[in-house]
Structure formats: C-alpha cells, structure tokens
C-alpha cells in the first residue's frame, strides 16, 4: 500500500485528468445532447431565450439587423402566410444514387423480413 501511495504522490500532477472521470463523461454527454439538433427545443424554445433575442435585436436596431433564421420571429412577422413547404435545397433527382435512396418506399422495392406483398 505504501508503494502505491508514494506513486500517487509522485504522479499527482500527471494523473489529474483522471479525477472525476464520471462527472466529465456526464458533462460531455450533456454537451453532445445539447449540440445534437433537439427538435423540441427548436420548436418550443425556452422563455429565457426568446426574451434574450428580442433585447439583442432592439439593441442593434436601426441600421443593421442580425439575421438568425431560428430566432428571426420579428423578421418573418409580416411575410406570406402560406402552408407550402419550400425547403432551402432540393435533391437532384436525375442521379441514380438519389433515386436509389427511396427505392424501398415503393412496393417494387425490397421488403423487410416478415412482410410480403400479400
């Protein structure tokens, strides 16, 4: 035991990164969770966030406007009221890879185990 203790003392500096590994892992996990597109947050947001963005815009008001698609509620307040979905980018449906990417959506595509055309 005494040997290990002395070792620990020696390497105290070098092994600092080992401290609280579990906590670090948990933090990293949460960070990743936050970075991954969380749709619920995107849709409902949080009250604090909404207020912040409003203040920011007012501060900048006048000549310049920071355009943030997700928070630009004010900017889109008076645009066209239309239910059509116009995505920013369309896929190129002339290439074979694209066509292949939806093959199994059709009855002519591959069927999963346990399902069949009947």
């Amino acid at each position, binding site marked *: 035991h005494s040997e290990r203790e002395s070792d620990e003392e020696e390497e105290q500096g070098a092994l600092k990164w080992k401290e609280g590994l579990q906590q670090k892992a948990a933090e990293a996990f949460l960070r990743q969770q936050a970075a991954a597109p969380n749709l619920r947050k995107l*849709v409902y947001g949080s009250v604090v966030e909404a207020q912040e963005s409003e203040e920011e815009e007012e501060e900048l008001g006048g000549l310049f406007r920071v355009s943030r698609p997700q928070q630009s509620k004010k900017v889109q307040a008076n645009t066209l*009221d*239309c239910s*059509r*979905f116009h995505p920013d980018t369309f896929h190129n449906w002339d290439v074979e890879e694209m*066509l292949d990417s*939806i093959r*199994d*959506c059709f*009855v002519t595509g591959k069927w999963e185990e346990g399902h069949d055309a009947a």
Partner: protein
Amino acid sequence: MASHGLTYDGCNFFRQRLLLSTLSGKHVKIKNIRSRDDEPGLRDFEASFIRLLDKVTNGSRIEINQTGTTLFYQPGLLYGGSIEHDCNPQRSVGYYLEALLMLAPFMKTPLKATLRGVTNDPTDPTVDLLKSTSLPLMKKFGIDGEAFELKVVKRGMAPGGGGEVVFTCPVRKTIRPVQLTEPGKIKRIRGVAYSVRVSPQMGNRIVESARSVLNQFLPDIYIYTDHMKGVNSGKSPGFGLTLVAETLNGCFLSAEMSSTPQGQGDPVLPEDLGRNCAKLLLEEVYRGGCVDSSNQSLALLLMTLGQQDVSKVLLGPLSPYTIEFLRHIRDFFQVMFKIEVQKPLEDERKGGDKVLMTCVGVGYSNLSKTIK
C-alpha cells in the same frame, strides 16, 4: 369561455391564429400588421378571410383600427350551415379552404360551403390537392360519411379566377385518436393534369413527361386529364398537375405545380411542369411520413383536439409553417408534443429523417353539435 386572450405581431400565420382562437374560444389581438409597409394594414384577401369566418360563426366580434394595422377578434360560436363566399382572387380558394377544413367538423350544423374564386394557383394548395389528400386524412380521425366531399364545379386559374367548389362536411362530437406510425409502401400513383382555356393537348404533354420520371419506380400510375370547357373554365388560361402517391396503409403523399399566371413572369412548358412536378413528388416521398408536408398542421390539430388518449403520427421534416402551428397550439390549448427524430437504418432506402409526433388530446368536444 376562457377570459384571457393572446396578442401577436404581424400578419404572418394569420389564419392559424384566427382559427385556433375560434376553436379555443380565446380572443386574439394582432398588432403591427404590415406597420412598416408602404401600404400598411390588412390586405383584401385577409379581409375576405375574416368575412368568411364571420359567415360560419355566430356572434363574433371583429374590430379593426383605422389603418388596418391592428385587429381584435372575439370568436363566436361555430354555426356552419349553408354559406356562399366569393374568395378574394389575391389568394386561391385553397387559402380559405385550409382553414374551413379545420373548423368544419366542429360546427353546430353540417357545413355546406360554396366558394368561388381562384381554384388553382402556384402559391397555395389547390382544391385538387386538398380533395385528394386532406379529406382521406380527416377520415382517419373519424370524420367521414356520405356528405363529406369536396367538389370542383368550375375551375378558375389565377389571376382571373371564376372557379367554384362545394365543400360539405358532417359534424362530429369528438375526434378519434390515431396511431399513424407506419406509412407502408407506395402501391400506386394517381394524378390530375388539368387545363383550361388552352389546347386540351397540354394535359397529355404533362402526363407523358411526368410518367417518364415516375415509371422508374412503379408501373401503376394513372394521371387523369381534366379539361374543362365553356362556363366551367373560369376567366384565365392555365394548366397544372397534382400528383398523389398512395401507400398500402392508406397514407397519401402529394406534390403539385401550376402554370405561371397569365402576365406574371415567364411562361412554363407543360413538359417541364410535368417532369418537375414528378420530381417534387419524389422529394415528398424522400421526406416521407404518414402525412405529407402540406397536411402536417391539419393532422396535428386533429391530434390535439382528439379524445383524452395518446395519438401518434409519423411525419417527414417539419415545415416552418408547421413549427409555428405547434407554437400556436401550445399558446391556445397548452398542448406540447413529444417530438422524436427517427434516423433511417444503415441499409434502408427509405429517404431521410422522420419525425414521430406524440401528444395526448385535450378531449375537445363539440358541445354545440345538434342532437337528432
């Protein structure tokens, strides 16, 4: 009814706010409507929409300030019955009809609405699209029966209009919760290639080019050509295509395109229109889900108003309009959905990410429905 109301800014999502206000009984105030615009205030088509709301309700209070930049709306009771409305041609009938579809099941008496105006334009969902996708979707929620139909009597292209549709819908006391999580494979594609006041050959040219794209996937494709003549052809020339893919589980995915309205930009060739519309349908299939992008908000509304049970619906990526609709549902009904992204499996060839929406209905019941 609930005493506190809601306040919004700007004219966007105008219909959502007014119809959710009507359904929830909460009054709504919309400020700063185009307040910085050269022509501030409400447009004619919005005024026309308000008049339509006034026709289907009883006792609504609507106040608009002098410049038209502020609107106050205190909803009355949804009455229904037989109404006629001349829709302002700035927007097509689809603009008005989308809202009526959401209100109709909750009327006191069954609705029979005759709407006149532009039936097909490139901006809004056309009456053909609503007929072939929204109605089957509503049937899944228990809204059906003989008197549930949308009939295109006369076709009217933008900008002149002159079309006429008749929409009849039965009333329901409650809405059935649904579990639409498995769309199933697409078994067939149907469509309508319409043309008015142009050569009837246009329809055939559209059909041929659309088929050339879609036949790579399926043999079962039938696209009707609908050429209306004389008094049924409206005031402006034009053509277009609506395509609907039907799955084994009875889900519908749609895409459509209309020719450029006369005198507004470059004319489009029927071959290009057919091909591009077919590609739009492939894009919609890639997005996937049990409900297509143009009907997302209708499905979410009916889920919200369902009986107090869990409803699940698989959607493609949420459209910006739908995202705002979800926020409005939270404002008016205090319902928040559980939103889960479903990534496609490694070897699966079924398009992109899907979104599973789950909620518990508020148990909305139509108390004004007449009992026979």
